[in-house]
């Protein structure tokens, strides 16, 4: 297992290099640079801008720029955000807890709901309950996230006034107190449900179908033949088999929940990584954009590795 993990980590290096080249090229293909967005050309002489471009290395050949960026990157220097005038690492670290909090909340909601609904539907397929769950799920899959988010804000924040519609915490609360955490919790509910709805829907249907498929297996019949009760058959024999494919999703979740919260975070103005990414693209904050893109790629690779390792844990037929 350790050797396998190391081998997998090692094989990520060429992939990451490839990704870094793509990220770097794409960033440079975007029209404009930090100067075109941030500096008022009426107040600053074009000579000065040119001088600064020269000084900051924006006029160097692209290969030199790439080499400089990578050299700094591997040494932990992600560059300096042109918008925030702070090291990129600090900017990201500042936002990361919010996103992780949101991702965790979404994950918990997703898995709890998906397991309850999926197990019910799988055990009682083609019943009224199963059909209702399927309707709910396919609606959830069909409606785009930004519409769900807006509808949720309209009903739960404006009409009913149950939950806040934006931000991650009400300003002025003292950090660490119960009121503070309670407030954060309330702020995360709507974005987390919006974020988790799609995966909840697809996992539920996936689990349902897998349970139905497994319930026709020979091992189920032989378990019945030795007098095992239906609840044991479903909750032990079948469920234990049906969680194996779900493990694959868990790895993907890791990447999509951190990186894929862009829309949700933007609509709820939730200050996390997703919003930072969109803002940075708008202000041509290359160092942040490149660092985040690389982070997303890294998370995808790590997520895949985590899935594969979890396979080994849940499926005794797989050993590394």
């Amino acid at each position: 297992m350790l050797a396998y993990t190391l081998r997998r980590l090692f094989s990520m290096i060429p992939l990451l290099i490839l990704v870094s080249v793509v990220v770097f090229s794409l960033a440079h293909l975007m029209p404009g640079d930090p100067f075109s967005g941030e500096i008022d050309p009426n107040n600053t002489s074009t000579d000065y801008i040119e001088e600064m471009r020269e000084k900051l290395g924006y006029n160097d050949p692209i290969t030199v720029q790439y080499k400089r960026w990578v050299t700094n990157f591997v040494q932990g220097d992600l560059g300096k955000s042109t918008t925030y005038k702070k090291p990129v690492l600090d900017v990201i670290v500042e936002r990361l807890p919010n996103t992780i909090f949101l991702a965790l909340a979404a994950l918990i909601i997703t898995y709890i709901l998906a397991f309850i609904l999926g197990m019910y539907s799988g055990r009682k397929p083609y019943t009224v309950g199963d059909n209702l769950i399927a309707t709910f799920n396919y609606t959830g899959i069909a409606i785009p996230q930004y519409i769900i988010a807006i509808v949720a804000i309209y009903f739960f924040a404006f009409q009913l006034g149950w939950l806040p519609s934006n931000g991650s915490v009400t300003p002025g609360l003292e950090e660490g107190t119960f009121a503070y955490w309670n407030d954060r919790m309330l702020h995360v509910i709507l974005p987390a449900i919006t974020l988790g709805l799609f995966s909840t829907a697809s996992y539920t249907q996936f689990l349902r179908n897998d349970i139905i498929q497994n319930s026709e297996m020979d091992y189920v019949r032989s378990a019945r033949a030795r007098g095992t009760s239906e609840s044991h058959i479903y909750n032990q024999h079948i469920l234990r088999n049906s969680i194996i494919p779900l493990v694959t999703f868990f790895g993907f979740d890791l990447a999509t929940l951190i990186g894929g919260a862009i829309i949700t975070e933007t609509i709820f103005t939730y200050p996390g990584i997703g919003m930072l990414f969109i803002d940075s693209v708008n202000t041509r904050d290359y160092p942040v954009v490149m660092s985040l893109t690389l982070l997303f790629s890294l998370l995808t690779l790590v997520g895949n590795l985590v899935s594969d390792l979890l396979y080994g844990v849940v499926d005794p037929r797989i050993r590394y």
Partner: protein
Amino acid sequence: MKESPYDKKLLEIKNLQTGFIMDGKLHNAITDIHMDVKPKEVVGVVGESGCGKSVLSLSIMQLLPMANSKIAAGEILFNGKDLTKLPDKEMRHIRGKDIAMIFQEPMTALNPVFTIGFQLKEALFNHIAISKKDAREKAIHLLRQVGISRPDKVVNEYPHQLSGGMRQRVMIAIAISLHPKLLIADEPTTALDVTVQAQILELLNEIQNEEDMAIMLITHDLGVVAEMADRVIVMYAGQIVETSNVINLFHSPKHPYTEALLNSIPKIDEDISKLHTIQGIVPSLQNMPKTGCRFADRCPKAFEDCSKITPKLAEVVDGHHARCLLYEQCYPNPSNKQEGVNL
């Protein structure tokens, strides 16, 4: 056969009719099944694929897929109790304890993600109060009993670590764990290598002697029947066409189907370029002939009556039953040769 107080019946099936619901209509897979199994007896049930052998065994176990199948008529009496009327909870206490079953596919019959020990112990926990430690010891003991070496290791292993033969041994160990009175073995050796087949049959024989249990052996292999069974039931297209003790069946088969089956066994001293086969195929559930003998289309001895008159199962020689119009007794109404109807 006259009933005497000496041949008490363990399992008695009367007029069983089980079918599948297809396109809203019930199509019978087995009809008019009358049979019994006495304590400690080995009964072979023979027939080609699709003749209803497995449906019969699943009917006894009440393990038919609930969604699309139905026991339409008849009784399955086990120790006098009608299994078809038993509530599911009571039936569960019989499954695995009084009646155990082993299946054709040992490769898939065990749950791949649980250890052998888990599945063995589960059978025990389902029916008796036993501590975890005792259950483990019992599991190891059972594995040893079915001839598995290193049982203390195997108990912690997963199914994929065992060969097909070993897995079938494990299935047998699970089946005999609570000393059932009846073991239903549905093609227990079909999926195994010939050498392993012989070992498994030998094991079943040994266990049957040790445990004093009855075995209902379902197979399409007449060789297996000859080796194991005391009595044979031959099935064709969902009906019993012949029953007799094993010696009479092999020496003087009464039904042309049985004759044809015996004829299709390749003989080692015979030099032929083509094996004997039975012409045609078994009629499908939807296309069962409404009247007449179901084997008539394929029967070399068929005559006029065969497609018009439905034979009944009757005793043709002492203790030897057949369902064929070659015998006067099998006419539904011998006096006027009236037509019968297939269900």
